[in-house]
């Protein structure tokens, strides 16, 4: 009986790892993965570029708005100053007209103080002035509509008077007695200058509001008072005035002042040595025109960012997917599974890498397969003839299927073994069997026979299956002779020890059903047919050292052997008597008679075997 530890080995190579589907990939972390980094870098770069563009545009827009406001303020300032000058000119004309009044001249030249003051008060109303002052040529106040007590005092603005002396008359906005006035000074000509007439219009918040209608900008009048400017009149309310006054420090001409948290672009127009006008406009008003632009910019930028994000994700996926596939395949390989292949259909380096990887895997698979086959063949050879083992290891399972084949069957056993086994020590029995099996086993391998079974001292070997050979009968007979010779040497030693042991052999050839028999988990490769029975009977008939062959076998080998015909034998279980021959010896050996190394021989195809 052939016993194998695993039964019949499976012809399907075992897998060490699991299937492809069950291989687990490590989960890709969002930003540490290649894909994440790619997306972050791509989108980050785009965002940086976008932000830079946005900042540049915003800065340009702001600068543009600033410059637009500045230009607007500059124009408004020019317009405003001209307006002031025109008003000054009006005042000058009015004052000059007033100074031509003969009654005023008369009063100034001849009348008493009270009359002069009265005339002044009257004339002040004529031009709706806030103040009218008559000055002596030397600059002392002759009469003042504000306060009679000013008479005899020095005119508080000597420099203005000097200017009037220089140019004949003057009109200017100046600070006087804590207030701001637009002042006009003209000489009182009679016809020589006999006095100066000074008319003044107070500049107050009303004036500022009035002037605002000209430019539509906030207007504030400031008086120079070291170290800075002090607001005198303004269209702004109290808190904004204070902030503007504070904010003006350090602004020479154009600048930005925070009022109530809002930036205002301001322009300072110095209209005289100690008076300045400040025009202003909220920056937000000018920027409001650009809100649409900013909204568009935000929309386009946001859309661009989203597109960039999507594009980056797509690109990253396209790039990382083959990489991940390669990683997954490499993990399979690391786990010992070479069956995986990567599918990277790209024309770039990654595609090349995938192709190379697949080629490497194919190489690994081949190697693994060859290695596995070799291993299996080694294992099989312990139980089968080398030929069968090779066939099996090559995966040709068709041989195992039940089939009919003409085979040559050889039976042999030891005579007297049962008595020996009873008498001898078990150790001796085992030693004998081991030596015996060693001797015959080597010969079976050499002659490429298929060992069907061995039962203690007997064994059955057949030829021409599963590997066909051209001369099964010749081989069987040659092997039988070789066995007899080999076993006789062995038995001689045991006979000398007193054990009467002999060796008989029977050989027949004919058709038999060959194939796998047994049940799931326990199979044998067996030959069943008359030929096996007949060869077994011939073996039983054979005496020690005798090789009995059937007529058919003898017909095949008569050229090779010397034999003697035994005549007709009546064998138990067989109806017809049988012609049997006893092979005495081989004829003079021919070189090709004995097969050389079994391995050098190519197994023949089934057809050739017939």
């Amino acid at each position: 009986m052939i016993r194998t530890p695993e039964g019949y080995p499976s012809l399907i190579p075992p897998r060490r790892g699991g299937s492809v589907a069950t291989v687990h990939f490590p989960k890709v972390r969002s930003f540490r993965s290649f894909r994440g980094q790619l997306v972050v870098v791509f989108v980050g770069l785009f965002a940086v570029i976008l932000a830079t563009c946005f900042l540049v545009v915003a800065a340009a827009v702001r600068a543009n708005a600033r410059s637009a406001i500045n230009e607007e303020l500059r124009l408004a300032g020019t317009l405003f100053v001209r307006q002031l000058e025109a008003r000054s000119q009006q005042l000058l004309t009015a004052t000059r007209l007033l100074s031509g009044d003969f009654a005023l001249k008369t009063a100034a030249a001849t009348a008493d103080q009270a009359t002069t003051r009265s005339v002044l008060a009257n004339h002040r109303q004529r031009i709706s002035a806030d103040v009218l002052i008559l000055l002596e040529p030397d600059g002392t106040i002759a009469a003042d509509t504000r306060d009679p007590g000013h008479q005899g005092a020095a005119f508080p603005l000597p420099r203005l008077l000097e200017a009037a002396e220089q140019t004949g008359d003057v009109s200017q906005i100046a600070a006087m007695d804590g207030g701001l006035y637009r002042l006009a000074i003209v000489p009182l000509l009679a016809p020589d200058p006999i006095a100066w007439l000074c008319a003044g219009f107070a500049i107050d918040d009303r004036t500022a509001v009035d002037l605002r209608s000209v430019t539509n900008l906030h207007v504030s009048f400031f008086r120079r008072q070291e170290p800075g400017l002090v607001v005198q009149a303004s269209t702004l309310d109290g808190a904004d005035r204070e902030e503007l006054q504070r904010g003006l420090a350090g602004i020479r001409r154009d600048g930005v002042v925070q009022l109530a948290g809002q930036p205002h672009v301001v322009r300072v127009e110095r209209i005289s040595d100690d008076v300045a006008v400040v025009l202003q406009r909220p920056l937000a008003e000018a920027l409001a025109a650009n809100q649409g632009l900013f909204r568009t910019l935000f929309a386009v930028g946001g859309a661009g960012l989203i597109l960039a994000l999507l594009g980056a994700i797509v690109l990253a996926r396209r790039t990382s997917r083959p990489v991940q596939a390669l990683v997954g395949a490499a993990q399979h390989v690391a786990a010992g599974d070479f069956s995986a292949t990567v599918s990277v259909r790209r024309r770039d380096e990654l595609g090349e890498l995938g192709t190379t990887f697949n080629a490497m895997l194919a190489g690994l698979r081949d190697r693994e397969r060859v290695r596995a086959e070799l291993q299996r063949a080694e294992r099989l050879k312990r139980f089968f003839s080398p030929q069968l083992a090779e066939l099996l290891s090559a995966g040709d399972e068709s041989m195992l299927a039940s089939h009919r084949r003409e085979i040559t069957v050889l039976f042999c056993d030891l005579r007297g073994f049962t008595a020996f086994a009873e008498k001898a020590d078990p150790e001796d029995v085992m030693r004998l069997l081991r030596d015996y099996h060693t001797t015959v086993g080597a010969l079976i391998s050499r002659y490429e026979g298929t060992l069907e079974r061995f039962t203690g001292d007997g064994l059955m070997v057949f030829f021409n299956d599963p590997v066909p050979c051209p001369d099964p009968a010749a081989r069987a007979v040659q092997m039988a002779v070789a066995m007899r010779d080999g076993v006789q040497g062995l038995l001689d030693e045991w006979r000398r020890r007193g054990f009467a042991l002999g060796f008989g052999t029977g050989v027949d050839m004919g058709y038999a059903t060959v194939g796998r028999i047994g049940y799931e988990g326990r199979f044998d490769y067996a030959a069943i047919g008359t030929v096996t029975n007949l060869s077994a009977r011939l073996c039983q008939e054979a005496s020690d050292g005798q090789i009995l062959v059937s007529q058919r076998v003898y017909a095949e080998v008569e050229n090779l052997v010397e034999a003697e015909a035994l005549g007709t034998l009546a064998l138990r279980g067989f109806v017809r008597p049988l012609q049997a021959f006893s092979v005495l010896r081989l004829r003079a050996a021919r070189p090709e008679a004995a097969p050389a190394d079994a391995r050098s021989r190519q197994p023949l195809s089934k057809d050739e075997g017939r």
Partner: protein
Amino acid sequence: MTRRLTVAAILALLTVVFATRTGVKAQAPSGPVEAIVADEKGKPIEDAVVFLTPLGTTPAAPPSSTALMDQHDKEFVPYVLPVYVGTRVTFPNRDNIRHHVYSFSSAKKFELPLYIGTPAAPVVFDKPGVVALGCNIHDWMLAYIYVLTTPYFVKTAADGKARLEGLAPGAYEARVWHPRLRGDADKTGKPLPLAAGEPAQVSFVVSLKSEWRIPRKFVEPYRGS
């Protein structure tokens, strides 16, 4: 020629009469006094009044005289009228419109309200000093009457020169005045000794103020038409 001779003869006669009447011992007069007035740049000054005050003596008052201050083509003529104190000045209006002559000067405050022709009464200038004349309805009209306490005065011509003759020899102080003189005329004094028959010269370099006169052209744009 004959006219000039006649004038000279009359002057000579007058002098004799004057000398005889004042009881001053007849004496040969000094030579002509030539006065030149110019500004710092050497430009001759017209209408400057050069007047000589005899030192040590009080000049005899000349007989009361009259003078004219015409108004012609809406201008005063002359621009400067030096007069001896007490002179009566008439203001004949030769235009066909009225004028309103006035003065607020302390030397003489007067007013001739709108009038045509020659006012009946002349204005007596009995206080020395400058009298600025104006017209109330024509701002540009401007003239000066310079009231002097000495009878020896002369007005410079356009070349800045003036000539004074027939003064008694002696020590004089020469001074100059002009409507736009910067400073006081009293401080322009220069000693001027005059010798009989000998000509003398006096020159002044003065500084003038700017004029305050209202330009006529702005007031009467259609004057030419």
